[in-house]
């Protein structure tokens, strides 16, 4: 069964989506992320969707719900690297992604999380070691 890997980097969870999402996959992802946030007590989740070329209303909404779920567990979710076409689709579908933070790329998301004091400065160093 295919699953989307969730990498733990310090206080941070990094999820890179590199394949087209289908409904079951995104449901599993939601479950995995919430579980991981609980077990690792992560303060930030970064969803890199730069590999995603297409979204439907369900997947678009799931991005919002994942952000809302992690928010009540005190972890901020960043959606990064959204493709222009995907952004236009989500706006045209009128999906409410109010609770989602967005950034151009992973680097900028980490910068913002660090500026908010959500993650420690050394977690970024760990990230470099992990690379």
């Amino acid at each position, binding site marked *: 069964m295919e699953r989307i890997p969730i990498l733990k980097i310090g206080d941070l969870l990094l999820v890179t989506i590199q394949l087209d999402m289908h409904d079951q996959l995104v449901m599993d992802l939601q479950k995995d992320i919430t579980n991981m946030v609980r077990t690792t007590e992560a303060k930030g989740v970064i969803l890199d969707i730069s590999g995603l070329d297409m979204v439907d209303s369900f997947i678009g909404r799931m991005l919002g719900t994942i952000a809302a779920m992690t928010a009540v567990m005190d972890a901020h979710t960043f959606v990064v690297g959204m493709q222009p076409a995907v952004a236009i689709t989500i706006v045209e579908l009128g999906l409410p992604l109010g609770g989602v933070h967005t950034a*151009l790329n992973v680097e900028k998301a980490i910068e913002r999380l660090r500026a908010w004091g959500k993650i420690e400065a050394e977690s970024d160093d760990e990230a470099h070691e992990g690379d």
Partner: protein
Amino acid sequence: MSEWAEKVIGIFSNRRDDILRMWLESQQKNGYRGMYERIGERELYRQSNDLFEAMIDAAGQVGFASVRKPEWQAVADLVAEITAQRTRTGFSVMETVTYVFALKTVLIEILRQEQPDDIGCFVAEVVTITHALDEMALIATSAYVKTREEIILRQQQEMLDLSTPVIRVWDGILVLPLIGTLDSSRSQVITETLLQEIVSSNSDIAILDISGVPLVDTLVAQHILKTMAAARLMGAECIISGIRPEIAQTIVHLGVDLSQIKTKATLAGALKWAFDMRQLTVVHNAKR
């Protein structure tokens, strides 16, 4: 065709050179300034000659009374073609149509010079010729309008095709100056260009300057809000600048809610905000 009608066409064919000369002279005399320079005398002569020949040819076949018959189609086409060409050169509708009317005056003058014995038939022929040339003038007018419409249509297309510039004013700061009316097709192009530029230049601040938008109604506001929402989803912060007093009044009167969005009155204000966001300071160098 009556005997008189044939006689008239005979007169016209015989005095072809006189008619052409008088026609050109009358155009030169009554013509508008710069008309000759714009067409050129040789070209004007060629056009007049072609049109006259075609007319005599058509009249010889079916007479001046039957302008709507297919034999006259060649004349109508020629009139339309000459008109279209002049319209594109920038002639006014009066200048274009006067060309046809000038011929009418000349033809009647030629008939008068031939000193007709039967005044009744003469008047009847004059009426017929007048009708025929009025018809040509109508064709010229509609050709003028048609050509103008084509020009307007082409210009509309060109305006749509005009590239929407996205300007990088600083590292990570983009300015999108919106100029002209925003309709759905244009705003779609604008959104796509902006998003593409956000990705390629790795910018996270975009300033939408609407000082060039003449009118902001609910639809335009919606287009702008959609563009901003899409940019925000990509991770870029958006700000609207260049809100003129009239626009501010319209927006509030229409009840468009912009309270969730950062707005500035001027582009300078927006740029200052963008610098603050990036923690940049502009320092005045006093030593200079």
